[in-house]
């Protein structure tokens, strides 16, 4: 590796992390004119991420960390793999800033190169769309600034090579995403923000305790050393559990996923794309970098992770099917796809030997999912157009793992993990997951189509229409091609494996089965509808069918919340909160043995009264003088005791 060249490129690392931070105040306070220009600059600066990413990818052996996937020895061949977090021999860029934080170290290795690539593409598209679509917004400056900080923080999470930097960046990212969620300031967004913040802060607390335990043992270690530190730590089981749970909130593992279907639909579209495409992947980075997988078996953790993964995939897909808003469907889809990643982590914990392959596959899958989900969210910008579903079609197919799509490659990788870990069940369940995804994507396309029919917004022409379209098309194109290119670069055998007829069939049958089910359902539904229409409207002719379809949909979609088969967004959180409040009220009533009205003073009033009373006693000078004397005597006695 050419050191000089690498150093020249390494200079980019802090610039990449800091540039958005510098742009953030300009966007926030620059007013409509300068803020907009800074916004464009922010979009463009995303492309800079490509420099180190492509440099590492382009180096000979740059992706050696991923070579275990479909390596030369065929499907099982992961010999010579050094581990992604360990001392792999692959090319890497490092940069140190000793004066920053607690000695900041940044690094690009194979894993971060892949994620940087994903970040760069989504960043450019989403920020460009944000600049176009939020221009008329009153608070667009605040939104843009939060977006910039979030992106900077995510980039730093990917680049970080020491514990403190990683944690700082992770926490910053978590907090900076809050303004994105509440941006639209509807009651719904406010509630989503509250739930998000509460869960995020709890997760931060869990993570922080783990991080502090590590720091207590080793100061501010390199991330590459953290797995060994954890493995050697006396409370290693607890540490693994804490890290697993802490990141699981971000990853949206059921049942900690509730913030996700609330937050992603509430945020503006570009922010949703970034939240769903990028930010949830930070959890993967955390697991990948910190957990001591691949060295020992962590049976409890593995069992928990696998169980959670299975539940997540099944549950999220099924609940998602009942949703009536496109973005909520997408959010549940994200949850289910993250379930696959959690399964990879669980496998790595169960079968140490499969860990490298599992992580490589997970990374490839993350890139695929990020791009496809980003494209799907961005195409929601056309919700209300007839054409919206057409933009979404290809990425949806990819997500469902259609043959020859990028999803097929990514899933081929996952299957290989199953084979490496000798878990045939995984392969089958992956196909089942694909089936469910197919159904979910069909639901999405249907919703998009129906929205276009039901509430067309063709008349409303926004400025920069073509730019929005360009961003969507760009992301769609990227989502279709980039995983292929990456797979071709790092593990050509995977590519050929994915192109074999058996693999093609394996990828195709869930899709076909799903499609068949959908078509059957459509026909069944149509037949039912015809019958009900006939019985209702008697002998009207068929020439007004179209109008009547619209009438029918209108009449049914007006009370979309009241449908018995719709699970509320964020499934359990609302009933839980309501139930909690009711339970508390009932308990208090029991406790007081008093009728519920008139209302008793709340604990706050009681607390305030008590604290005021204490303060008013303390504040008297006589009391202060007495306490002063007590203090003098206390310290004297202890001091004399020290002399003994």
């Amino acid at each position, binding site marked *: 590796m050419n050191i000089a060249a690498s150093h020249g490129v390494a200079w980019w690392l802090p610039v990449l992390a800091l540039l958005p931070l510098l742009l953030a105040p300009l966007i926030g306070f620059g007013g409509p004119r300068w803020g907009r220009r800074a916004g464009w600059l922010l979009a463009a600066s995303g492309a800079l991420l490509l420099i180190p990413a492509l440099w590492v990818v382009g180096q000979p052996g740059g992706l050696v960390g991923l070579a275990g996937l479909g390596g030369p020895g065929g499907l099982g061949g992961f010999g010579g793999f050094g581990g992604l977090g360990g001392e792999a021999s692959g090319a890497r860029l490092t940069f140190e800033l000793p004066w920053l934080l607690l000695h900041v170290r940044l690094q690009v290795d194979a894993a971060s190169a892949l994620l940087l690539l994903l970040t760069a593409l989504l960043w450019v598209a989403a920020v460009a769309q944000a600049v176009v679509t939020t221009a008329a917004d009153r608070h667009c400056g605040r939104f843009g600034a939060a977006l910039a900080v979030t992106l900077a923080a995510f980039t730093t999470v990917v680049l970080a090579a020491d514990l403190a930097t990683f944690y700082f960046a992770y926490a910053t990212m978590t907090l900076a995403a809050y303004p994105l969620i509440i941006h639209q300031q509807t009651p719904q967004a406010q509630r989503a923000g509250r739930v998000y913040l509460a869960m995020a802060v709890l997760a931060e607390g869990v993570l922080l305790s783990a991080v502090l335990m590590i720091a207590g043992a080793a100061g501010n270690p390199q991330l590459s050393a953290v797995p060994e530190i954890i493995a050697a730590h006396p409370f290693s089981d607890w540490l693994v559990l804490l890290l697993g749970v802490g990141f699981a909130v971000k990853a949206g593992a059921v049942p900690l996923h509730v913030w996700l279907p609330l937050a992603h639909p509430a945020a503006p579209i570009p922010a949703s794309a970034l939240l769903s495409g990028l930010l949830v992947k930070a959890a993967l980075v955390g697991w990948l970098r910190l957990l001591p997988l691949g060295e020992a078996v962590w049976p409890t953790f593995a069992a928990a992770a696998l169980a959670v993964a299975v539940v997540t995939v099944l549950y999220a897909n099924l609940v998602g099917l009942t949703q009536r808003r496109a973005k909520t469907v997408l959010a549940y889809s994200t949850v289910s796809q993250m379930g696959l990643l959690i399964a990879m982590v669980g496998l790595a914990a169960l079968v140490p030997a499969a860990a490298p392959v599992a992580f490589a596959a997970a990374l490839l899958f993350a890139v695929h999912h990020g791009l496809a989900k980003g494209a799907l969210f961005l195409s929601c910008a056309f919700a209300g157009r007839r054409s919206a579903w057409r933009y979404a079609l290809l990425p949806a197919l990819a997500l469902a793992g259609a043959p020859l799509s990028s999803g097929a490659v990514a899933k081929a990788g996952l299957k290989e993990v199953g084979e490496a870990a000798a878990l045939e069940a995984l392969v089958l369940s992956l196909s089942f997951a694909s089936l469910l995804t197919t159904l979910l994507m069909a639901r999405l396309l249907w919703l998009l189509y129906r929205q276009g029919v039901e509430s067309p917004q063709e008349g409303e022409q926004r400025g920069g229409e073509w730019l929005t379209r360009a961003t969507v098309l760009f992301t769609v194109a990227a989502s279709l091609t980039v995983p292929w290119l990456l797979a071709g670069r790092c593990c050509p055998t995977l590519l050929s494996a994915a192109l074999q007829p058996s693999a093609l069939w394996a990828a195709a049958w869930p899709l076909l089965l799903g499609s068949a089910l959908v078509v059957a359902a459509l026909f069944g539904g149509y037949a039912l509808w015809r019958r009900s229409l006939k019985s209702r409207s008697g002998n009207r002719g068929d020439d007004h069918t179209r109008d009547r379809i619209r009438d029918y949909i209108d009449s049914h979609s007006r009370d979309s919340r009241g449908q018995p088969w719709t699970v509320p967004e964020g499934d359990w959180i609302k009933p839980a909160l309501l139930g909690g409040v009711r339970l508390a009220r009932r308990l208090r009533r029991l406790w007081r043995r008093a009728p519920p009205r008139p209302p008793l003073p709340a604990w706050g009033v009681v607390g305030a009264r008590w*604290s005021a009373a204490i303060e008013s006693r*303390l*504040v008297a000078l006589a009391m202060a003088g007495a306490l*002063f004397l007590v*203090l003098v005597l206390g*310290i004297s006695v202890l001091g*004399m005791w020290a002399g003994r």
Partner: protein
Amino acid sequence: MSSEFADSGLMTAELLTASAELALPLVFFVPLLTALLVFWVGSTRAPWLPPLGAALTVAAAVVLIFGVANGGPQSHHLGGWQPPLGIELYADGFAAVMIALTAVVGLAVTLYAGPYLRGKGLSLEHFWPLWLIQWATLNGIFISADLFNLYVMLELLTLTGAPLAAMAADRAALSAALRYMLLALLGSLAYLLGVALLYGATGSLHLQEVGALLEADATAAIAAALITAGLFAKAAIFPLHIWLMPAHSNAPAPASAALSALVAKAVVYLVLRLWLWVFPVLLTAPMGWLIGGIGAVAIVYGAVQAMRQPRLKPVIAYSTIAQFGYLLLLLPLVVLPAAALPAWQGAAYHAVVHGLAKAAAFLAAGNMIYALGHDRLEGLRGLTPYLSVSMLALALAFASLMGMPPTGGFLSKWLLLSGAIAAEQWLWAAVVIVGGLLAAVYAFRVLAYVHAAPPSGWVELRAPRRLPRIMEWTPVVLALLALLLGVSGMPLLQLLAHGAPEIVTQWAE
């Protein structure tokens, strides 16, 4: 060409290092003489004089800090007399860090005070001399290495602080100032009594010499007790905090900022300096538990009181009481080998970060009072657009006070926590965490008002006043500096390492 530059740069560095010794008395004399000059000329005749004096003071402080950073601790024997006879001025890393904080906050207060007080119709005539003398006194406290000289400085601090607190001249402010005066007099006389006993036992007033000569006997114990309790009274440490809230919340905003961020802090600085340099022989584990326990109760108590305040400035003032508790947590931790260094760094760091954040919060509250005419939290609903920048500063400052991750407050709490955890002091670790959570409660309570929509039918009784630009941005800059300290902590920690107390460094080997 480039080597010439390097040479001249090197020479400048050497010159700066050499002149650092002279800068030591100057950080005291420059603001003092400026104050007298301002009084003599009259502030209306020369409004440029206070900012000029502030700039010169900052310049002297920069030279001094540079000298400490490059040449280690600086010392100056006043009058040319050796320490036991004469008085030594001594600046190590801890002092330099505090002088840096004072320079930053002092400059901000100086820039802010002019437009604020003029806008509120208050006289600047006495404010300027009082404030500049206070600045001189603060610097004096940080660099003086003589116990009796410190007594004189402490009295100066009280006598400059009390009138600033009483400036509003209503019932609350006057009674707070009276309480402050009486309790501070009790405190300073107790301090002097302790100093008398120490002189009686050792025959010296020089800090380090007294520390070297002192034995752990009854005299030392009673002297330490009197001095500590006296300083607690002067610094308004819980439970002797009785004057702090009304005094700090009724003073004009720039004075509140100085009082909370610097004045009380300087006294706590003295508590730490005396315990670490003079009384380490008395610092046993039970002593640490006593003082740390006081700090722990202060953290909880201050936060609980802050939660129930209906006005913004009292919230910030009670937060000061809570935040001082963290500084006291140093004493139980510093005696433990595993925790000494991080706890020491964390406490000193906390002093600086809290100073910046607290000054930013008070100045932001001052902006609110200036624009709206009151600081009731209810009035923050339906925020006037002129205040959005100030509320950003407030939010950043609160983030730092509660120790949110990218801020300086996080770094200081991280250091304290990692020290406590490394020494397996779960109680102190829990206190730090609980304190952060409680701070989050009162901070979010305030910020919730900022975010809330105005109630229906809301009518602003009077049109908000437009803020001068300098007032708008001063708190933001301070809050951003607190944030920056969270991002870049190393320079400060390196500066702090010069002349660290022996009780900390003895475990390093």
